[in-house]
């Protein structure tokens, strides 16, 4: 596939909402989908800039989210605020390692993986195209699919706050870290939405075009 057959090259673009193909009026970079009414661009506008901004915000917020306590369990008047990591360790120490693993994956591994994955994808687009675009697409899809599961910890807090509410005997209170953590989740979910995976393929074709001066373009190592 030495020539790209992308819609953009043919002056067409696809509506990300209803997947209808349409032709933009010449000279315009955006239009309105005639079928569903969504705004249509050839590529998501300022995708890289927005994604970088949201990824950086998420990275910075990860610090307070992990340092500040997310919840305090007070039992018979005593109890210490616990952070996300502390809560996971406590579950592990109590022998509930299965639940500890779930909470660890959802609230520690997933946000970090998401941010690292997005940074890798952004660098691949901006530096030199991905060597194996299928692998990048797999990263993109995993990042897009796992994002929502990090809200697990917050839902648990909201359940416990209402459930364990017996004044002096037992009480669960939310902590300021939970606000930061909620923002991390929302910001990273938005970052995935603003990232345009089609840019990966554009970058890949730029890369093969550059190297085609030296040798024949490889027929797409990732073409499945």
């Amino acid at each position, binding site marked *: 596939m030495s020539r790209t057959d992308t819609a953009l090259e043919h002056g067409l673009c696809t509506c990300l909402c209803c997947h209808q193909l349409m032709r933009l009026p010449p000279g315009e970079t955006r239009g309105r989908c005639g079928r569903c009414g969504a705004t249509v661009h050839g590529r998501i506008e300022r995708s890289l800039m927005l994604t970088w901004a949201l990824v950086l915000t998420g990275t910075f917020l990860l610090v307070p989210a992990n340092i500040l306590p997310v919840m305090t369990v007070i039992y018979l008047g005593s109890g210490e605020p616990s952070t996300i990591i502390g809560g996971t360790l406590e579950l592990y120490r109590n022998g509930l390692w299965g639940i500890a693993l779930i909470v660890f994956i959802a609230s520690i591994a997933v946000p970090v993986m998401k941010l690292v994955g997005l940074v890798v994808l952004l660098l691949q687009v901006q530096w030199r195209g991905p060597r194996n675009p299928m692998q990048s697409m797999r990263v993109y899809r995993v990042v897009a699919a796992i994002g929502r599961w990090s809200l697990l910890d*917050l839902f648990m807090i909201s359940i416990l706050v*209402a459930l364990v509410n017996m004044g002096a005997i037992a009480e669960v209170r939310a902590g300021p870290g939970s606000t930061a953590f909620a923002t991390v989740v929302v910001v990273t979910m938005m970052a995935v939405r603003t990232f345009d995976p089609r840019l990966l393929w554009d970058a890949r074709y730029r890369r093969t075009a550059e190297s085609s001066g030296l040798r024949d373009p490889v027929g797409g190592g990732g073409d499945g």
Partner: protein
Amino acid sequence: MEQGANDSATGWQQACHECDLLLGNSSAPPGGKLVCPRCAALIHRNPARSIHYTAALSISGLLLFIPAATLPMLNFSIIAFGSENTLLNGVFSLFGAGYIWLASLVLFCSVIAPFFRFLLLAFISLGCLWGALDRPVARAVRWYQHIKEWAMLDVYMLGVLVALIKMQSLGRMVVESGLYCFVGLMVLSNLTLLSFDQQSVWRRMARRRAATQAAGNGESSGAAS
């Protein structure tokens, strides 16, 4: 701007939404799915009787929302002191404690977004039967695409399970009827993800538009002759 789905000059009718590869117009066989040959993105899934199933599932989801949101889900007791939890209860507690942003996020993801998802699906799958509702239905499909990923009933369910196990050492935890309704709601919500296919809504609209146009042409030609 051209409205037609096809670009007659080139014959391309579709492009992959994840890698922008141009494709011919091919829709998946009934019950099957179509993936992009280059990036393996899911282009189209064609579940059988999509609109009917979606209508049934979303209306039952809306009905099941009433008990799931009002009945208590869990009951926690230490010695003689007990308290119950409903879907909205936790949100109010967080709100009362001053965590407004957190409370509104939980409210949005566990109540508002799932509810609107069911409502929009019911509206889309019933509204596409009438030509007069074409524009609102198109808008509803667009909103559905935006709200889809924020409905997190399954994540909430896992949160309930974690809370259940975590607090077992402190006191007695009893599962109540609301939780069973909630499980049903979650199952319905995931089934609608499988059953809903927006392309069949668009196809139905296009068919009807073609039919009314043909009827209009027939009338006008009849009047002319």
